[in-house]
């Protein structure tokens, strides 16, 4: 047995405990950041859109209020054709208007300056850059085709012609025919409005015309083109010369875009139209800055996740160590069991499944150890039984003998290694003693009694006593050994070859059958049981006294001695052979009075045919004698 070659359980455990939260939290973070980013972008677009709309409204309001403040002067010029005292009264030092130029729009589209009025206290100069209002400034602007074009195209517009915060408002006023339309150019200070665009903040704000020229905005970008930095798509859709549907009406929708600048930096753009010409307020916010919070959230989340993974890793290491150390113990223990060391035990204190497994393993190892010991004990006992069998075989005589004028042939087969049957013959003082007995039960206890019987018989035969006395002595001997717990049926005969008389005594044993020789095959009624005397079994009562009787034998007579194991022989179907078949087999075996070895072989063949090698339930013992007459042993 060797350790598995793939990833160890501990590594798998660690991978599962770390990768699973990593994947789940990573997916959660991706979804959360996407949602948060979308929400943040929507918020920033809303914010910048609000800024652009507010600045557009502020610009429109600022310029409209200036126009409203000078409208009486413009009305005065339209009615009188000159700037009267009213202009001097309104254009004070506090007024944002520096000068007003009144022009006629000729049919060829050219502006023809007709009048000019400047704010009180202003001294006309031609310095460059011009810092004070001068009529020459108005002259140059009037002659500018750019201004003419705007004046023709729009009823009201504004330009920033000087690159500073000053703004020229163009107000077109249609006159009753045949008078020509009037166009007033009003130069005003736009510092406050310009400061609104220049104010630093998260968003950069621009006031641009339809060509993307930045009229107001961060100082470094003023007088440059926003389109040079950013591809502003909404300007391309803006009709330059199209008049507004209504004065002051909405001409273009506000909107938002996401674009990349010339540095390939993503910008969030919101735009809103100013109600003067095709002017727009544009607010831009770098997307990176807008999503700074998302980046912060991402960084903090990653740090949190890293800490969480570290904590999970540490906990997993501790948990997996506890788990795998118990399993490693079990693995090592199984290896030792495989090597035959069954006394190994696993010391696992946990009460979980692994603990239960360890307990089961310990029980299994203990059970295997116990079974091994039992197997060893059984092997030892079997070895001892084989020894006992060898010893017991010495208790039996040779199966075939010629003793005196008797021939003897026997058969013995124990049901287990050692049995409780015993048979014997011997020659004592000119007589033949024939012994057969059957201890209650079979196996080792019965075998011990037969050993005792054999030992006692060896002593008794030297006493030269008759069968009844011999059984008396044998009974006491067996009773003293077994204390009445094991008994023995016994038949003892003593044959005198001179007188041909058989003296026998029976201790409740199966009566032997005498078969007298005749010319006819023996029949059942020809079987003579030797049952004229019967006595208690040996070992039943120490005080029992045994009787004997005598029968005369003739040459040719044969006697079958047997134990009750023969009729009880069973076949594989557990069917007993039975007394009827036994008697029939005995008669058949002796039908022609063959030599007794042949008769015994026939009888053996009969019950083996029924038995079919089935296991024995009781010992089988029988022997046959035949009286020949005349011969002496």
């Amino acid at each position, binding site marked *: 047995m060797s350790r598995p070659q793939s990833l160890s359980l501990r590594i798998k455990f660690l991978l599962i405990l770390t990768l699973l939260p990593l994947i789940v939290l990573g997916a959660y973070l991706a979804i959360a950041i996407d949602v948060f980013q979308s929400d943040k972008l929507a918020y920033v677009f809303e914010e910048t859109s609000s800024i652009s709309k507010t600045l557009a409204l502020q610009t429109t309001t600022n310029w409209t209020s200036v126009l409203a403040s000078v409208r009486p002067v413009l009305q005065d010029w339209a009615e009188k054709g000159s700037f009267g005292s009213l202009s001097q009264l309104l254009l004070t030092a506090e007024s944002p208007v520096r000068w007003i130029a009144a022009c006629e729009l000729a049919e060829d589209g050219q502006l023809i300056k007709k009048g000019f009025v400047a704010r009180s206290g202003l001294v006309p100069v031609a310095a460059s850059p011009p810092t004070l209002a001068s009529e020459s400034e108005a002259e140059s602007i009037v002659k500018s085709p750019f201004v003419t074009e705007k004046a023709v195209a729009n009823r009201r517009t504004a330009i920033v012609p000087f690159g500073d915060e000053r703004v020229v408002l163009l107000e077109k006023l249609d006159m009753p025919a045949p008078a020509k339309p009037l166009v007033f150019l009003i130069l005003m200070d736009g510092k406050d409005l310009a400061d609104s665009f220049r104010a630093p903040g998260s968003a950069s704000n621009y006031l641009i015309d339809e060509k993307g020229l930045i009229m107001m905005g961060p100082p470094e970008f003023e007088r440059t083109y926003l389109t040079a930095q950013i591809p502003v798509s909404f300007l391309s859709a803006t009709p330059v010369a199209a008049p507004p549907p209504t004065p002051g009406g909405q001409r273009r929708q506000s909107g938002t875009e996401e674009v990349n600048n010339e540095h390939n930096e993503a910008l969030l753009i919101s735009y809103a139209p100013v109600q003067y010409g095709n002017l727009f307020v544009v607010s831009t916010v770098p997307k990176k800055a807008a999503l700074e919070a998302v980046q912060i959230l991402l960084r903090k989340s990653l740090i949190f996740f890293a800490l969480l993974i570290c904590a999970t890793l540490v906990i997993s290491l501790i948990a997996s160590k506890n788990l795998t150390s118990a399993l490693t113990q079990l693995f090592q223990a199984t290896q030792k069991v495989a090597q035959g060391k069954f006394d190994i035990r696993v010391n696992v204190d946990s009460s979980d499944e692994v603990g239960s497994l360890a307990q089961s393993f310990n029980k299994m190892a203990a059970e295997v150890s116990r079974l091994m010991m039992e197997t060893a004990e059984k092997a030892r006992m079997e070895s001892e039984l084989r020894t006992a069998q060898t010893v017991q075989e010495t208790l039996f005589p040779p199966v075939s003998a010629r003793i005196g004028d008797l021939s003897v042939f026997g058969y013995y087969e124990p049901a287990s290694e050692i049995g409780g049957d015993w048979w014997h013959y011997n020659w004592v003082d000119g007589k033949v003693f024939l012994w057969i007995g*059957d201890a*209650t*039960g079979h196996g080792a206890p019965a075998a011990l009694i037969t050993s005792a019987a054999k030992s006692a018989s060896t002593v008794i035969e030297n006493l030269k006593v008759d069968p009844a006395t011999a059984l008396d002595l044998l009974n006491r001997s067996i009773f003293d050994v077994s204390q009445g717990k094991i*008994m023995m*049926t016994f038949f003892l005969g003593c044959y005198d070859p001179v007188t041909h008389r058989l003296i026998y005594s029976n201790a*409740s*044993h*199966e*009566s032997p*059958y005498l078969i007298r020789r005749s010319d006819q095959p023996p029949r*059942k*009624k020809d*079987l*003579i*049981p030797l*049952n004229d005397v*019967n*006595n*208690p*079994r040996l070992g*039943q009562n120490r005080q029992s006294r045994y009787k004997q009787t005598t029968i005369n034998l003739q040459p040719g007579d044969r006697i079958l001695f047997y134990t009750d194991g023969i009729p009880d022989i069973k076949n594989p179907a557990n069917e007993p052979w039975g*007394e*009827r078949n036994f*008697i029939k087999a005995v008669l058949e075996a002796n039908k022609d009075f063959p030599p007794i070895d042949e008769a015994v072989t026939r009888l053996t063949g009969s019950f083996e045919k029924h038995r079919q090698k089935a296991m024995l339930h009781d010992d089988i013992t029988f022997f046959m004698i035949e009286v020949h007459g005349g011969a002496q042993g």
Partner: protein
Amino acid sequence: MGKFEITINKKGNDWAIKMGGTIDEDVDFGQYMLTGAQKIDLHLADIKSINSCGIREWIKWIGATAAAVTYHECPKIIVDQINMVQGFLPGRATVNSFFVPFYCEESSSEKSYLFRLGHEFNSNGDLKIPIVKDDQGHVMEMDVVEAKYFKFLKK
């Protein structure tokens, strides 16, 4: 082999005991003490088998009573033990009836015929063998060695 069963019906000092099944070393006769009985009728028709250990227990049990014991309806296995084992039928006990197996070689049929005291045998051991036929009318022969099976009647 059936489980051992015993039914004891007491009418004063007269007891009727009916037994059946197997008598072996597991049967504890000690719990069926016969003390107080003067006349015991043992009905043994349902005894199926008895082994050597059962015989030992039987002899201890039946040998301990002083009552007049009568065996009724003894099956062949009981008759075999009566004939073979001294003490199985105590000296003061008698057999009132016993079964004798009959067999017909021709039809392979078997029967057990009940021999009753005063009918098929008497107290002197004289036999009056009945003619037993099988269902087909064949005369059946006794399936025992007569000299051995009826030996107890002569005692």
